[in-house]
């Protein structure tokens, strides 16, 4: 990596790369959505469903698990919103090694 060129950037994890499409494709939104749906289902099950106290030892497990899942879901949505993902505009091709049979890189048609 030729790190010297980018010494101006303050944060190698996120700001090294130029801002590009944030995109709908942020895994945190996926995690938030799935856990949120689970949270809703479990909370409803906890309130209306069979509480199965004999199995859980007298705690409404679905309700508590559902509420915790909703909290975690909110955390992921919030995080994705506060610090959106940045996709690098250009990735250095890894084919500059003379010992490697180099592929001819052609831009791929979409």
């Amino acid at each position, binding site marked *: *990596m030729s*790190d*010297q060129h*980018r*010494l101006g950037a*303050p*944060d*190698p*994890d*996120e700001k*090294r*790369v130029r801002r590009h499409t944030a995109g*709908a*494709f942020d*895994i945190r939104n*996926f*995690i938030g*959505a*799935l*856990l949120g*749906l*689970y949270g809703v*289902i*479990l909370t409803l*099950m*906890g309130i209306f*469903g*069979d*509480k*199965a106290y004999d*199995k*859980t*030892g007298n*705690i409404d*497990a*679905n309700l508590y*698990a*559902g509420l915790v*899942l909703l909290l*975690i879901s909110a955390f992921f949505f919030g995080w994705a919103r506060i610090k959106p*993902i940045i*996709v*690098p505009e250009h*990735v*250095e*091709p*890894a084919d*500059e*090694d003379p*010992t*490697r*049979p*180099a*592929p*001819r*890189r*052609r*831009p*791929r048609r*979409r």
Partner: protein
Amino acid sequence: MHALAGLPTADTLISANAVDYVIIALYFVFVLGIGVMARRAVSDSIDFFLSGRSLPAWVTGLAFISANLGAVEIMGMSANGAELGISTVHYFWVGAIPAMLFLGVVMMPFYYGSKVRSVPEFMFRRFGTGAHLVNALSFALAQLLIAGVNLYLLGSIVHALLGWPLWLALLVAAAIVLSYITLGGLSAAIYNEVLQFFVIVAALLPLTLIGLNRVGGVQGLKDRLTEFAASAPASAGVPPAEQQLSSWPGQALSGFESPFWSVVGIVFGLGFVLSFGYWTTNFVEVQRAMASNSMSAARKTPIIGSFAKMFVPFIVIVPGMIAAVLVKEIGELKAGGSPPGGASGEGVKYNDSLLLLMRDILPNGLLGVAIAGLLAAFMAGMAANISAFNTVFSYDLWQRYIRKDHSDDYYLRIGRLATVGATVIAVFTAVIASSFSNVMDYLQSLFGFFNAPLFATFILGMFWKRMTATAGWVGLSAGTLSAVLVAFLSEDAFGSASLGVIPVGGQGAAFIAASAAFVVDIALSVVVSLFTRPKPASELRGLVYSETPREDLVDLEEIRLPWYRRTLPLAGISLGLVIVLNFLF
């Protein structure tokens, strides 16, 4: 899924209801959705195979853990927990964390900095064709085998839980894994692994907490385990309570009778040779780090992963221990009985601990989440194997030895075809595994022996510029052979094929075999190097420590980050935490 009721279905182990099915179905919608979304981002082969090197460290770090948190890990470690108790944690705290930290601190700069696309490719550049072929072929074969085993376990769980016939479960699971990897490549695999990680935690954490509630908390669990160990018949061989409740000296795990040798065996055999061989050279894991967006993120990948890894035992091993005192069948099994039933239908095994515990303590709803979590884990394992396989197959075998110099599009296509091929082979492997499960176990331990000497060759090659190409392949082959030899001489590493000349069985035999491989590899590599010609120093930049400028090995921008986001402080905290955990338990 009730629409499949027309098929001949067996009695299910667990009675899931409509809500559970909705939860499971939702999970699969998300898995495929990620594949479709990742499809849009894949534009060339680097995107497909290395995720364009664009992922942040927390994503690759969790994927690093998830890739390993497959069927074998979850079922196997909870089974060990039920059978042996808390000393199973050594697989995590001794057998994983130190090696993961070492990978991040010491070895990752070479992997990421040299811009290789796979671990075998590093082998090629350091040692040339011989060592590369040994490494690439054994790795590719092992991945196919393990993918098959993961798929078989997945299929058998679906069979046990939902009552689908095994062949249908195998095909559906394979089709799902295939579709999201061919669509989105490594990005899809990694993103799914991160999602899977959270679903697995959402599945296992409530199971653990409710289980603890049922047995009366931690103290209740201890009391009941102590009572159980005292009352079990001597013939059952139940480890005494103090061995089940304290991780050291861990005789129950190592199989050594002497506490001293047990500690030595665990620290050197498991902690040093076996785990370093696995965690620092296994491309399935390293590939996750290679997909990250900077040297700093690549190095932090295994270190961030280590924080998750050190707490996994609490939601995997503890439920196993709870199952041993709470689930009637597991208790009978542990007391020397052979209760009928189980996931296989051929009698309850320790591997069934988690499933039976889920059956006994989870209400519908959480049960669906738990099943989704298990399915997630099994698919994560298989997807990781297959995505690592297609990279090594396309870059290291096809491109290097069969068709050089084609366009990038061509290798992208080969990668997708390799994924299809690997999935088809995995289905057949799974079918074979369903009828010859012992053979598969021995094959897995056989491939494990290819890992043992790898670490020796890598570490010597990275720090000793004099080491030659010949020494590379000679050391690797001789190390592997000596591990296999020791396994044959031990009591039971290869089952009845082992001769029993060395009076150690179980995990102890694996420790000794791996140690032999390490010592033989180092010794032979040094001797051979002294008699052969080393590579010129100019070719070793980025590959050997003394020939690589320091700025190639560290991320110069990292000093600008706050301390808690830098590699070394994070590694230090992780190491400190794991030492504290070892004292606590």
